[in-house]
């Protein structure tokens, strides 16, 4: 893939020179970045799937999935309707491309855009900020183009066979331009973000934004098929309205229509002009005004280490005492207390942990609510609220699973050098922190929704489900290889994930059904509750007794 991109790049040499970049430097930077990407285990795309070995395969697999999804959508939307009615389906297609590009940019490539290791390596070299910035844009855009192409490949063939090669080519061009437009908008987005937040907060803000985006992304899997399903969308032509000129996907759709119909009235010509001009205008604007500003802003991100001493204000000192207080309530000995507070603090600050965990929890909630509104099928049944309660359990286990992973895994030598007698206390303390910090609020939200929607008499079920979830969480912790918190490298975590997930779902299903059985027996749930709590307590004690022999150290 690297060679193809570089070949294309060579063809565009004069464009980059025209934009004021030093082409040979740009070529070198892009080449090195792509080479590194192909070797690095793709952290940025990691959440799409677990990578094995060379990661470019992984990226290709993602592209294949996109091609299939994109293909299915295209068949549904572009294959059937008559050419007069294609405006809305095309708009949806372009929206889909743009949304995916924007999400990829924000959630996966923030690290690339805001990469500060460049500061140390490239900034001391005679490279102008324009060259560096263009190299970054090229690097990112090459991925976006690959994604866009895989999404649209089927549409292109459909359009070519139905309306001729010219429309298909125009569609292709406009899809790529959509990606360029998204690069522009994301850049603007980051700059605005940097204007309103101090630089040291920027990464934090982006982190939360990524979490929100990830939830939306998962959620859109739910919403999108339903959108496509609505037949009304494609059955009648759309009347053009003034506000359509403000919606970028509509420009692209309108522009494509000019060739498909073909039609060259005023409305469509405006669309065509907007579609062709804006991405280039954006590129020119960025290149003209934003490059120096951007690189300078980014290089100042590095400096936030300098200002951190001042951020330790009295407020955060107060907060720390508060964590100690909570730790006191829930833990037995000092080792456990230390692990509790330690885990609590790290999980609040480690951006990777938050990025891996919070979206899952958010999606768990969103999914339950989405299904319960669906009406018919699962949502209406008596059984559903139980399903929801147990289903949430799966998402909580993600947090427990992530607990052992850290980028700073090397720091875990401390467990080896410290004279720790009962390592189980550390494990239980840190598991308790996760339970109090994530599981309890999550269940509180979930159960208040369930109680609100299905009546307060379900309180016994909520309590039992919570206790059972704890039992399962503890069993999972007991059964999987036990490691100290934050002591494992991210990449080492890939194996047997699916098998574990399947097993957990199976157990959850069994427990859930048993619970359902209990609801049929009068007071069955109330009787089971103390038993479950006792089991939970017993398992926790077992977990706390974990000896060094059963802990895996790196």
């Amino acid at each position, binding site marked *: 893939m690297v060679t193809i991109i570089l070949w294309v790049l060579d063809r565009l040499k004069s464009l980059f020179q025209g934009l004021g970049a030093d082409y040979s430097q740009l070529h070198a930077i892009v080449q090195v970045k792509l080479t*590194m990407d192909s070797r690095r285990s793709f952290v940025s795309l990691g959440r799409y799937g677990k990578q094995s070995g060379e990661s470019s395969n992984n990226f290709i697999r993602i592209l294949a999935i996109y091609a299939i999804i994109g293909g299915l959508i295209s068949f549904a939307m572009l294959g059937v309707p008559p050419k007069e009615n294609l405006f809305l389906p095309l708009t949806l297609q372009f929206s889909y491309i743009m949304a995916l590009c924007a999400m990829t940019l924000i959630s996966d490539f923030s690290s690339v855009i805001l990469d500060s290791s460049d500061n*140390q*390596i490239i900034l*001391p*070299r005679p*490279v102008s900020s324009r060259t560096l910035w263009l190299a970054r844009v090229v690097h990112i855009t090459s991925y976006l183009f690959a994604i866009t192409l895989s999404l649209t490949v089927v549409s292109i063939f459909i359009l070519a066979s139905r309306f001729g090669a010219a429309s298909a080519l125009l569609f292709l061009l406009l899809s790529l331009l959509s990606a360029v437009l998204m690069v522009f908008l994301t850049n603007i987005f980051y700059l605005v973000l940097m204007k309103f937040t101090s630089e040291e907060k920027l990464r934090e803000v982006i982190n939360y934004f990524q979490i929100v985006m990830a939830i939306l992304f998962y959620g859109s899997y739910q919403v999108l098929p339903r959108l496509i399903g609505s037949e009304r969308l494609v059955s009648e032509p759309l009347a053009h309205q003034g506000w359509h000129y403000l919606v970028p996907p509509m420009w692209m759709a309108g522009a494509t229509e000019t060739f498909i119909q073909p039609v060259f009235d005023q409305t469509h010509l405006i669309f065509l002009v907007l579609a062709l001009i804006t991405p280039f205008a954006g590129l020119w604007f960025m290149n003209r005004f934003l490059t120096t500003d951007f690189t300078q802003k980014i290089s100042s991100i590095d400096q936030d280490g300098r200002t951190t001493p001042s951020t330790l204000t009295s407020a955060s000192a107060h907060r720390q005492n508060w964590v100690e207080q909570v730790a006191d309530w829930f833990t037995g000995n000092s080792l456990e207390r230390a692990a509790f507070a330690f885990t609590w603090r790290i999980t609040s600050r480690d951006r990777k942990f938050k990025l891996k965990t919070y979206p899952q929890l958010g999606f768990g909630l969103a999914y339950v609510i989405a299904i319960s509104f669906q009406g018919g099928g699962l949502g209406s049944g008596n059984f559903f609220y139980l399903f929801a309660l147990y289903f949430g359990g799966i998402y909580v286990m993600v947090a427990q699973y992530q607990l052992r992973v850290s980028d700073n895994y090397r720091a875990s030598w401390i467990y080896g050098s410290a004279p720790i007698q009962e390592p189980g206390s550390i494990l239980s303390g840190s598991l308790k922190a996760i339970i109090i910090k994530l599981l309890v609020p999550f269940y509180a939200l979930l159960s208040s929704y369930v109680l609100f929607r299905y009546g307060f008499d379900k309180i016994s079920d909520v309590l039992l489900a919570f206790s059972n979830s704890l039992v399962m969480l503890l069993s999972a912790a007991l059964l999987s290889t036990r490691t100290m918190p934050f002591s494992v490298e991210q990449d080492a975590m890939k194996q047997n994930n699916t098998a574990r997930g399947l097993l957990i779902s199976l157990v959850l299903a069994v427990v859930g059904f048993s619970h359902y059985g209990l609801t049929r027996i009068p007071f069955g749930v109330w009787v089971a509750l103390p038993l479950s709590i006792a089991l939970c307590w017993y398992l926790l004690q077992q977990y706390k007794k974990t000896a060094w022999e059963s802990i895996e150290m790196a």
Partner: protein
Amino acid sequence: MNPDPVIQLQNLHKSYGSSLVLKGIDLSVSAGQVVGYIGPNGAGKSTTIKILMGMLPDYSGEAVVLGMDVKTQSIDIKRRVGYVPENAALYDTLTPLEYLQFIGQLYELDLAHIDRKALDLLRLFQLSDHANARMTTFSKGMRQKVLLISGLLHNPDVIFLDEPLSGLDANAVVLVKEIIRQLANDGKTIFYSSHLMDVVEKISDRIIIINQGQVIADGTFAELQHQRPESLEQLFSELTGNEGQTSVAEEFINTLKN
């Protein structure tokens, strides 16, 4: 001495946000000197070097390197300046050869020329066997060697070294010191920043001590010694206001005992 200074700083001020890091640095360095640039942590050493490299354009005062203004001609300066930052990042999924090829290309050197040069330099640093291995597995010393080569590859006229000996084994330390000496004899200017006082004492033609953003001592070691006949280490702690380390050490021990 060469009448035209290679590095000239006048009344250099720099602040990060509200905190003033450099409070009026005045410096003039001529070619062929090894300048030991020392100071306590956070004194502003790296900041000065970054400004001289043209990496931090928002300073006030005057900074001229090789007769060029840092603010307006930073690219031209960077072409003739080498920089080896402390504990620097490198793209460690690359091999040393690939990394050096990349760096060389940024200086617009000819690829074949870089290859030959890089291989020779790696050989001299005894990294030939590792020239095509990814640097993820490298020890700190091996990385430091690659960093040193990457900073010197384009044969710069001015060289900024920040803790260049860190992680190197004893043989490599001797080698690098000798390289520094001979570079200076060749007429290169070396700006050497370190916390190892004995090394600075031996290697430098001239020593500049800064503290809290200001130059507090400047001269050859002999000159500095002339005022107070001590080792550089003692001189340093005296000048930077950290005398009585013995009593601090005692207090430290006592605190441990409690």
